[in-house]
């Protein structure tokens, strides 16, 4: 159905161990350009590991991962190349504390794309405006709220012009009143058509933007379905058990 050049990420038979622990089991996953995936599952099921494998923050022991047609080599060969096409947003924001918001956004483009300071600044301002935080450009991360920091982290990733954005529970470390501003930012991104994979338990977000919801348990993909099906008529027992747990929460 999908043509080769419409595929952004292709994972085939990916296996990953931490020592003796088998954390990812035969993961097959194809993500098309412009597609929005939501990944959910119990804690420890391997969601973070899966998306961290996509930009080679974790090494895999079996299978292949391809991003934009570039295959990730063994031992992370080609990793820097692939990472430039993949933006990542972490649960803990991971902004650089010694750099201002603007500098956080300018560092990687300047070092990697070797663009001028002025160009990097323009680009940073553009994306900071997009996440509605440009007026805080001169501040340091510690001077911002969690929600603001996470929006800066999103802008920082966007400055590299990624083909795909990965989000690992971007709202889990936030105070409840800040969740919405970050989710709204992500919905805005989705509306622009960027490809994204998001680990989250925010089911409202999943309903609003996901093309497919993927449920993982114990290192396996158990079920994949569009949100209406996924929430309405889940096929698998484990999915139902999981859903009843988080929805009654």
């Amino acid at each position, binding site marked *: 159905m999908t043509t080769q050049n419409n595929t952004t990420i292709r994972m085939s038979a990916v296996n990953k161990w931490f020592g003796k622990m088998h954390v990812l089991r035969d993961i097959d996953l194809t993500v098309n350009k412009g597609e929005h995936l939501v990944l959910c599952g119990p804690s420890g099921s391997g969601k973070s590991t899966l998306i961290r494998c996509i930009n080679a*923050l974790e090494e895999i022991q079996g299978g292949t991962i391809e991003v934009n047609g570039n295959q990730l080599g063994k031992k992370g060969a080609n990793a820097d190349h692939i990472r430039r096409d993949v933006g*990542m947003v*972490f649960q*803990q924001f991971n902004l*650089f504390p*010694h750099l201002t918001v603007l500098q956080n956004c300018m560092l990687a483009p300047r*070092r*990697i794309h070797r663009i001028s300071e002025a160009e990097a600044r323009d680009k940073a301002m553009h994306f900071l405006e997009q996440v509605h935080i440009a007026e805080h450009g001169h501040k340091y991360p*510690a001077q911002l709220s969690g929600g603001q920091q996470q929006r800066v982290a999103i802008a920082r*990733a966007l400055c590299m012009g990624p083909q795909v954005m990965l989000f690992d529970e971007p709202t889990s470390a936030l105070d409840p009143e800040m969740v919405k501003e970050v989710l709204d930012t992500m919905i805005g991104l989705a509306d622009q058509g960027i490809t994204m994979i998001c680990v989250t338990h925010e089911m409202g977000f999943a309903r609003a933007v996901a093309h497919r919801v993927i449920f993982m348990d114990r290192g396996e993909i158990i079920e994949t379905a569009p949100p209406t099906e996924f929430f309405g008529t889940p096929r698998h027992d484990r999915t139902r058990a999981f859903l009843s747990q988080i929805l009654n929460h």
Partner: protein
Amino acid sequence: MYDFDFAPVFQAWRLLAAGAWATVYISAISMALGLVFGIVLTAMRMAPVAALRSIAIGYIELIRNTPFLVQVFFIYFGMPELGLRLNAMEAAILTMTLNCSAYIAEIVRSGVESIRKGQIEAGRALGMSTPDVYRFIVFRPAIRAVYPSLCSQFILMMLNTSLVASISAQELTYAAQMIDNQTFRSFEVYFVLGAIYLILSQLFSLGLGLIGRTYFSYPTK
């Protein structure tokens, strides 16, 4: 009762001033070189190659578990046997540099280890190379975390320069010994000398604090 007489000591103030300048000079050069070499050692100490790690650990522990004075003698008197003939000043600076790099390496390593893994991963995820990640992301917060220990170490090193007088390197203590030989006012000479070192260490402390506030300060929670 002993008659204190500080006049002959103060009359020789030119010698003391020149000596103090030499002490500052030796210290500053050795600190700068020691910092660079210490960072190289830290990189070796944390390298993925086991051989590099072993070399770095061996070097660091050898230096930290032997007296500076013996290191000075080893370099100044011993190295000519291996064909490396240095004058007193060169030997002093070389030994100081070798010595302080080992201490600095240990301090910097604990600074690097205090940086959260997420910081490094965020740099990686942006596609930055490992050297760039350490240079632009890890370095400043790591040094900031250990800056007070680094400053104490620098001051200890400055005080350590007093030992290179033993190979006739012409710094502050050497100047004092010359005055002592001329005046026989030992206690007065060393009393004034101690006061000068005390002032120098305060000045170093102030200067290093200023550098710290300029380069290593940013708001934290």
